[in-house]
């Protein structure tokens, strides 16, 4: 079931499903094969090597190409602007370096003191940069319009930032699923001051959680973001998606993972939020729409057996203590699920 998934980011550090690093009663750590033995690990290793060859994830120097249309657009814009800057740098630094080499007092250069102003040249090097900036701004403006268009989303999820964890509350057809997502225990042990544990031995150190956010690929997912305490920010680089979460306000952000790019994607809190700002990561488990539907069913069955029957494809019934609002009901009716 899981073999076809593309591992993202750090496949060579092990995958939480196929390998688990656990701490036994004696405090010693051991890696244990998961449900399917070592086979998934070997497959992932192979896929991992293949995945690295592409630019889905960062190569360590540059932005990731990512797995959404937005991330790819951002990557292209970034590369365009980067190369324009390199071009300008070659010209400008070239002129500077040429001057340093050719116009040296020590080699007898005599200064041309009449060369101290030229309105014509100044106009040229005011207008040309302005034109270059317009050239950069046009694609950027188009992408902004895409980013801000949160209409017609198919699945909405409420994301709440806490000090120092995330809470995900599903809406629409997955209404009722509600859980916290906290830094994984092995990372948490290792990161303590003087833990004595080498971070390199912890799989996905600081980028692993106990319960990842699960979403379907090929679906316009909209996050409704808020905070319970201070400003945080939700960021997954491979999605090209970052937004601050502000207490008392709701921000929106959307993405659609390309079909075929199912897998695990990792991100971090991106706004200083206190002591453990660096220790509240985000993990997203992208599944095919069918697998997602199945997962939703399982979650609901586990929590509220009576709700599960009513779950998929129909008006969600309000869960205990869960305030169903008109927006949820409306989008559930509009949802293709």
């Amino acid at each position, binding site marked *: 079931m899981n073999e076809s998934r593309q591992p993202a980011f*750090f496949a060579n550090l092990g995958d939480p499903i196929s390998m688990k690093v656990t701490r036994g009663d004696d405090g010693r750590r051991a890696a244990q094969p998961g449900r399917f033995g070592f086979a998934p690990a070997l497959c992932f290793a192979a896929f991992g090597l293949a995945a690295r060859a592409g630019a889905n994830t960062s190569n360590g120097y540059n932005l990731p190409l990512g797995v959404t249309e937005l991330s790819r657009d951002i990557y292209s814009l970034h590369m365009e602007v980067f190369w324009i800057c390199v071009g300008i740098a070659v010209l400008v630094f070239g002129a*500077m370096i040429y001057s340093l080499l050719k116009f040296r007092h020590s080699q007898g250069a005599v200064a041309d003191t009449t060369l101290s102003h030229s309105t014509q*040249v100044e106009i040229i090097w005011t207008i040309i940069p302005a034109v270059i900036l317009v050239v950069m701004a046009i694609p950027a403006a188009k992408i902004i319009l895409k980013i801000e268009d949160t209409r017609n989303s198919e699945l909405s999820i409420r994301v709440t930032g806490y000090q120092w964890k995330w809470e995900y509350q599903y809406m629409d057809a997955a209404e009722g699923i509600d859980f916290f997502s906290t830094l994984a225990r092995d990372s948490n042990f*290792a990161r303590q001051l003087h833990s004595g544990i080498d*971070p390199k031995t912890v799989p996905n150190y600081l980028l692993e959680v106990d319960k990842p956010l699960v979403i379907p690929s090929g679906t316009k997912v909209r996050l409704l973001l808020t905070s319970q305490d201070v400003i945080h920010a939700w960021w997954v680089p491979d999605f090209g998606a970052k937004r601050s979460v502000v207490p*008392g306000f709701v921000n929106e952000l959307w993405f659609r993972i390309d079909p075929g790019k199912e897998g695990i994607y990792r991100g971090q809190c991106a706004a200083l*939020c206190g002591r453990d700002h660096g220790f509240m990561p985000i993990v997203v488990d992208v599944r095919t729409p069918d697998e997602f539907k199945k997962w939703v069913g399982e979650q609901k069955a586990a929590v509220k057996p009576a709700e599960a029957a009513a779950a998929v494809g129909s008006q969600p019934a309000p869960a205990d203590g869960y305030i169903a609002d008109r927006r949820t009901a409306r989008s559930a009716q509009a949802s293709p699920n």
Partner: protein
Amino acid sequence: MANVHASTTAHDVDHVDHHDQPATGIKRWLFATNHKDIGTMYLVFSLIMFFIGGAMAMLIRAELFKPGLQLFDPEFFNQMTTNHALVMIFGAVMPAFVGLANWMIPLQIGAPDMALPRMNNFSFWILPFAFTLLLSTFFVPGGMAAGGWTMYPPLVLQTGDGFPMLIFAIHMMGASSIMGAINVIVTILNMRAPGMNLLKMPLFCWSWLITAYLLIAVMPVLAGGVTMLLTDHYFNTSFFNAAGGGDPVMFEHIFWFFGHPEVYIMILPAFGIISEILPTFSRKPLFGATSMIYAIASIAFLSFIVWGHHMFADGMPLAAQMFYMMSTMLIAVPTGVKVFNWTATMWRGSLSFEPPMLFALAFLFMFTIGGFSGVMLALVPADFQYQNTYFVVAHFHYVLVPGAVFAIMGAVYYWIPKWTGHMYSMGLAKTHFWLSTIFVNLLFFPQHFLGLAGMPRRIPDYAVQFTDWNMVSSIGAFGFGLSQILFVIVIIQCVRGGKPASAEVWDGTHPAGLEWTLPSPAPYHSFTTPPDIK
């Protein structure tokens, strides 16, 4: 009105001797009204703060040397990042520029002193008190503020007993800056020697004139913002608390309305300094001096309408994103003009590479690199990936360290023979330069990679794929920090003695500027009668 003191009243006997010799002992400094003495105090203070802020940076980079937490609690790490910035910005860079202004503006415009010498003294002496207050938050319950120098609520309201100390320290620093700015404007507009019209005034004075207006415009806004933080915390207001009808993002607006012009406050005097140094060592006038002045003025004006670019990812409406993106990109135009004009100043010049010139050239290269990353950051969609990552950290450190700080060091190397009357060891100064340049690039260039690869900022520990560049960056930091000891050695040696400097100091370069018509060292009271401006 000139402020040359009458020297014959009886009660003046105990005070400063108004003839040629300064007072002796601590009184000279506590009661200083002489722009040279006050300038010296600002510069010495700023050097001390540079080392304190630098020590905090060394602690930060030591923890970030390897993944895992080796040295301290994450809360202490956050205290270090917060106070490193506060000390460097308000304690090192800004006072250094004010010190240079105090020393050089009267000399460059042919004035005997600043217009308001007693206020000048007060402006300086506020600072040691303000920083004692700030740094002593280390010792109070709850420790130093740890919410970033940007002090966003609600996080900053979780600061312990040090919170009101932080706020009052900032108020004091702001008051000092405002008074200093007033002094600069009044001096420049009223005390130029006859014949020095504004367009003949040196670029350093122009840059400070404009910077002073920026300071007066925005420091009160910061004061208002931090006062609102104080009342939210202690007096039940809800400026930044949604439950009471307020908005944390409003603080961001108020802060960055100050904060963006603040970063231009920290760079415009640097632009002025480079425009003094480059022509001297190119033996050629500054290319396009008038448009350089217009460029500074345009940058200053534009700096008021771009603050939103610090907030792109915070839930900003579409129209605002478009506006701030375009206004921010627009600043690249006058800044580019300056870079091109500096390059044109060198073109077909006759260049020599004394330490001030080395620093000016390094500024030119590396500030431009910082400018490129700035243009990239202005593009909203890309900024969603860069915001709050090490890419931003790399950008602002490039414009501030090999930018503003190198300009300050260049200025010190340029003018210190005029201040002390001694030349310094060129060899030591050049060694300081090369070590600083190499290590500063090791320190900050890899941070571009870290940010693009996905490392957020303000984290004490990171995922293992970020290890290598963090290690390189930390090595750069230790090297850069140690190299600054050479700077102190050069300065101390120069103050104590050295080959006598001529009036022109940089013989053969024929530098423009009234300061070079005075002997070295400049007399304690200079231009007591206005010079003739040709």
